[in-house]
């Protein structure tokens, strides 16, 4: 009786840990490979060309290659900012609604529906933004460029809403009922309770959702490749087209000569994305830890 159970147990444990290790090894190897390919450009001259070139222009296939990353980093930031400005309020508001205000039956419908939104392939989202959203925005607001940061950022925002919603909602739902009951007992309205008691109590989860959404936004490729216009211009205007790091890698990796400056520059962009996500996740973790410690201190 007990022997087959032990065998099964050992077998399952082995399968799970093997799968886990495979994932870790994969990530480590990808990390190693990405950084190895950048060695050609890891020197002072190239860093100057990447970040200090004046005028900042990205023309890698020109007769005199110009490899400034500034317009591309700027494009990535523009898209990310617009995407987060759209997704964070909408996602948190939707989470507050479904956890605090919606009747339970409605909540059972809203939650899976929004989570389903996360399953929409980004190429579909990009296509929608390219064909429908861009035309609508241009007709409504008279934008000069069909494909611009607003269009791309909004499409990106659609993809980020489920991330912000799901994690925030989990956090809000986990706030103990005692908090709410105490608040009602003191005469607070439902809105006051949601806004001043439940939301602050779930702040770490909400913040975690923002950080994860940021990571996704920086790395998102297809939506921005299709809806962003891919013009590498150094402009702070949200009405100009943009080109992002990930879209540049996707568009240009197919034709570079392996080992060339251009190739290494694309890998450098990849490494940059890697570092940005790494830093954002670390900062997120730190803030979450500090917040939860502070809350614990206040509670005791």
């Amino acid at each position: 009786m007990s022997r087959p159970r032990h065998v099964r147990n050992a077998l399952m444990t082995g399968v799970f840990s093997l799968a886990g290790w495979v994932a870790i090894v994969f990530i480590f190897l990808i990390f190693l490979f990405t950084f190895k390919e950048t060695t050609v450009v890891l020197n002072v001259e190239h860093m100057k060309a990447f970040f200090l070139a004046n005028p900042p222009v990205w023309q890698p296939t020109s007769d005199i290659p110009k490899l400034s990353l500034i317009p591309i980093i700027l494009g990535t930031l523009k898209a990310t900012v617009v995407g987060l400005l759209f997704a964070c309020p909408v996602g948190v508001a939707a989470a507050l609604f479904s956890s605090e205000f919606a009747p339970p039956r409605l909540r059972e419908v809203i939650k899976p529906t929004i989570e389903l939104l996360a399953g929409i392939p980004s190429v579909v989202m990009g296509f929608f933004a390219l064909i429908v959203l861009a035309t609508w925005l241009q007709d409504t607001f008279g934008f000069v460029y069909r494909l611009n940061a607003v269009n791309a950022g909004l499409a990106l925002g659609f993809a980020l809403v489920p991330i912000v919603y799901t994690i925030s909602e989990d956090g809000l739902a986990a706030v103990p009922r005692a908090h709410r009951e105490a608040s009602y007992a003191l005469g607070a309205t439902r809105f006051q309770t949601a806004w001043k008691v439940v939301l602050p109590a779930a702040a770490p989860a909400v913040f975690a959702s923002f950080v994860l959404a940021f990571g996704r936004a920086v790395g998102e490729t297809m939506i921005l490749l299709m809806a962003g216009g891919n013009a590498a211009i150094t402009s702070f205007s949200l009405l100009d087209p943009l080109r992002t790091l990930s879209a540049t890698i996707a568009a240009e990796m197919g034709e570079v000569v392996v080992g060339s400056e251009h190739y290494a520059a694309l890998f450098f962009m990849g490494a940059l994305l890697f570092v940005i996500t790494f830093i954002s996740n670390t900062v997120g973790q730190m803030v979450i830890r500090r917040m939860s410690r502070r809350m614990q201190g206040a509670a005791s």
Partner: protein
Amino acid sequence: MRLSGGAERFFAFMAARSMRRALRKGAASDVQTASLYTEFTPPSFAYDTRPLVCAGMKRHARIVSTLLLTVALAACGGREQSTTSTGGAPARSDKPLTIKGSDTMVILTQRLAEDYMKAHPGEVVQVNGGGTGTGVAAFINGTTDLAMASRPMKDDEKAQAKARKGADVVEHAVALDGLGVFVNTANPVQQLTIAQIRDIYQGKLTNWKDVGGPDTQIILYGRESSSGTYDYFREHVLAKGDFAPAVQTLQGTAAIINAVGRDKNGIGYGGIAYAKEARAIAVQAEGAQPVAPSEATVADGTYPLSRKLFFYYAQNAPERVTKFAQWAVTPEAQALVTKVGYFPLNTAQ
């Protein structure tokens, strides 16, 4: 029944154990999201279950999704390889003929391959796009037998291929294509000189009124640098100069036509076989009359932006490669070229 009961017990045990651990660790737990919830430590055990399991699951889900993504990518790569292969055909040649390159030529070569396989049972031809640059790189690296190119191969590319293969590269023209310059159907501009098009794409002319149109900004659309169309345009229109950074680069001629069709201030370029939603304007070379692109003007060379479409393969390539390339210039195959919207070779020059 017994087995499923056992499995249930097993998972329940595992879940309970991990939960107990997380609870014990409290705020110091490395499962960050879990730790937030444990600080409330509600008396009811069931109350805490959901967020804890969720937090754990999310972490696992991320690892699993990474794995799945890797597998999916590998699967996609595999599928792409067999776009036009006829799987069930009896293999007379031991290996299929692989063709890769210019997106402009994909439709054409796929039609050629279909008819070729019909006429030669047992031969298998696989056609992939990706852009001329991609195809030439694959040819040099030896991952494809034959490269489709909408521009001539560069000398350094030829030298690289020769060094790799130990044989010269054979250049084999298969069709003619006219490169159209497209504007929106509502745009009154009917013709542009090559110099005007150059200035527009280099950002020196930015308003349609400078070339006889309305007083609105010109919105530029172009191709990615992996495209042979991009190279051809840069060489023949921009005189090897740089495109303005404001050019919005789209994936494929169809995307450009679509964008120009929707953008009344847009201008784009691409193979004229695609012109449906936008209007191809007449192009005027220096010291010549403006010529609209048509079969006649492309074939007799009066339209200034016409180009040859090439197949490239190694001189020492196996028979399956040379046979297909030779077949592509037979009258039978050239009739297909016209059907797809390009121009046959034999009427030229």
